[in-house]
């Protein structure tokens, strides 16, 4: 690590890049969906909630398998050439993170005080302002959901291994590198990479704590 091994830094960079893509996509799609699920009452809400909660426990290898099946040359999305690429891994990780973001956002929104809506509307908010202000008020719960999703995305192996293929310089991430190095008996490097994961998680949490105080 300290000698600046380019291969190791390539894996770190790939991890940061792919997890950022996937978490950005899952937040962009998941927060509005989670808001709707938590805020509105509609028929079929409870069964839908149960489905989302179940999907929060999706096994990563199962997602990897499904995404592989879709992205492989013979698969329905094979023409896009996404198999064994970082965007391919990002798609799988987005599927992994999305139910977590939706479920925890819905919980955060459901936990909002009902008086908030009256308070915001009584100040003259339109629908868009009501939505944005409610999101801001639920920010602590949303951040908790985002951290949980980011943690899951950062530490998964199944999707990265199956969809990315663990290709050196290309799709090797920290977790697949740890698996590889452990298989080779290089426990020291594996532990060092694990510490890098912890350091990234620490940085994310410090940033979130800063946002929380605002």
């Amino acid at each position: 690590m300290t000698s600046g091994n380019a291969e190791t830094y390539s894996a770190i960079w790939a991890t940061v890049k792919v997890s950022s893509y996937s978490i950005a996509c899952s937040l962009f799609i998941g927060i509005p969906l989670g808001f709707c699920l938590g805020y509105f009452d509609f028929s079929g809400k409870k069964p839908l909630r149960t489905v989302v909660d179940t999907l929060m426990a999706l096994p990563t290898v199962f997602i990897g398998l499904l995404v592989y099946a879709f992205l492989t040359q013979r698969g329905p999305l094979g023409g896009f050439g996404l198999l064994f690429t970082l965007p391919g891994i990002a798609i799988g990780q987005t599927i992994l993170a999305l139910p977590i973001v939706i479920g925890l956002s819905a919980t955060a929104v459901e936990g909002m005080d009902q008086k908030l809506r009256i308070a915001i509307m009584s100040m003259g908010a339109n629908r868009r302002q009501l939505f944005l202000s409610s999101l801001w008020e639920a920010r602590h719960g949303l951040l908790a959901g985002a951290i949980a999703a980011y943690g899951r995305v950062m530490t998964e192996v199944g999707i990265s291994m199956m969809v990315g293929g663990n290709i050196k310089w290309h799709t090797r991430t920290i977790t697949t590198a740890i698996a590889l190095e452990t298989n080779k008996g290089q426990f020291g490097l594996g532990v060092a990479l694990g510490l890098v994961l912890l350091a990234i998680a620490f940085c994310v949490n410090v940033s979130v704590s800063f946002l929380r105080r605002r």
Partner: protein
Amino acid sequence: MDLPIYEISSLKHSYAGQTVLAIEHLKVQPASIVGLIGPNGSGKSSLLRLLGLIERPTQGKILFNGRLVEPFSEEARFLITLLPQEPFLMKRSVFNNVSYGLKLRGNGKGVVQKVNEALKLVGLPSQDFARRPWYALSGGEAQRVAMAARLALKPKVLLLDEPTASVDAASAQLIKEASLRARQQWGATLIVASHDWQWLYEICDDILHIFKGKIFGTGRETIIFGPWREPEPGKWVKVLSDKQQLVIPAPPNTETAAVIDVLSVSEDELRTSDDDIVLRGTVSRLSLEKNTDQVVATIIVGNLPFTVGLTPKQKRERTIFPGKNIFIHYSLDRVKWI
């Protein structure tokens, strides 16, 4: 007469199929102060939420300045504001809470000054409070901040839902004074739901009594709940806590509520006619009714409060005062059922 600021017709509002409000017709004049009196659960808050365009009525129309309005109506949302009963502040500083509505309006100019003025109106010096977070306020301070957030908007209509119910006496006084300034300074229309009858009698141009979702009377009436008893055939009564019998005509059923409009008070028990029914009570307070300039006495009979206007002679002679034992008079034909 001016165009009414509010006009309601054939309004019905329900929650889960249960009708909580049914108002045939109601008009509110601009720059007037209207009081809503009624027991808990009578529909006051529901009415204020409808007038505040927070909810859409199940049936019927609400016209604001002659135009049909509903939640998020562009022509009204910046002109009406509601202060709910329980203070609710957003997770922001006091300054950001008070400036929130101004920012929604894209009204960025002079925000600091407007916030400072609004905080001053409710007795909160901005140098001490503006930077405080929402969780570092007492209940009374939070309610005053919520009030300041509404006053900063200089609304045309200020709807107050029991604004002093959960605050101490000093905070209540500041909120009362601030709400009146809204009318004095920029001619706001005030609609106030409160159990503080004395305050409402002092400030209101009109008082509406609301019970079981229906508006009736002028607020002087007393609502008396059943059950009614028939101790002898044809004579229906309610036995009060001091054992006096409150006589009423035959009720539609034994649980119906009666509305009694007291005719007068006297210092002696003499009945003026056969229909005259007299009960003994104690004066609990006197207040000046703003729109009639009449002194209104609240008299406790048993444990029920009755409200009656004093005659000019009684007002002049000042022989009726709180604590004095006195007699109220009503007749059976002044009893209504609701």
